[in-house]
């Protein structure tokens, strides 16, 4: 099981802050994960419809969409950051 954690409008659109998911073996990279999540329902489809706008953290470190997710315990998905 992998912990997925969502923030800001990604969280609002998916309708939950976090969940535990069993990722299929076809999900090798972050990009694969985003494609897979969109199959889980309209709310995921809506939240992730522009995947290039989605930032990703693997175990709390920023990651590119090409990075592998194998062995990662916590994956964060969120829009571009606007702190400071």
């Amino acid at each position: 099981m992998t912990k997925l954690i969502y923030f800001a409008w990604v969280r609002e659109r998916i309708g939950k802050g976090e969940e535990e998911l069993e990722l299929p073996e076809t999900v090798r990279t972050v990009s694969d994960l985003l494609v897979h999540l969109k199959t889980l329902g309209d709310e995921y489809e809506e939240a992730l419809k522009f995947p290039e706008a989605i930032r990703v953290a693997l175990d709390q470190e920023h990651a590119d969409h090409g990075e592998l997710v194998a062995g990662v315990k916590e994956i964060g998905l969120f829009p571009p950051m606007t702190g400071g």
Partner: protein
Amino acid sequence: MASALLHIAVQAADFDAAEEAKRLTAGRKDVGALVQFIGYCRDENGTLSALELEHYPGMAEAEISRISQEAIERFGLIGMSAVHRFGKIAPGEQIVLISAAASHRQAAFDGANFVMDFLKTSAPFWKKEHAADGSEGGWVEARDADDAAREKWK
């Protein structure tokens, strides 16, 4: 060179700039320059009633710490303190405080400026606007200018 002082806090409570200045300079005689940056919530000409800041607990602290450590090494800082609030913040209230202590002025200016530029684009915080007319405002969009500001340190 002794290791630099580093203090990071991500908190809902307000902060005191004088306290952070003291943390970096009290009792020291090698600090020649301190630069403090305070970011405030603006009311956008009366249209905004509050900002709501969401953050990624754990990663927010780690990311600010990483950026601060990079500034310490890059500019040879004596000390760096970074405090960032989350939760609901009203116009006029403080949001973020960066304090950089160094022997000389340009290192202190550059250290604080560098941390702010990277914090804006890399620290996992998101601002939602609450409109003054009671309607729900949207999420603040990331600004291209912030990405450009980060590029100047390349």
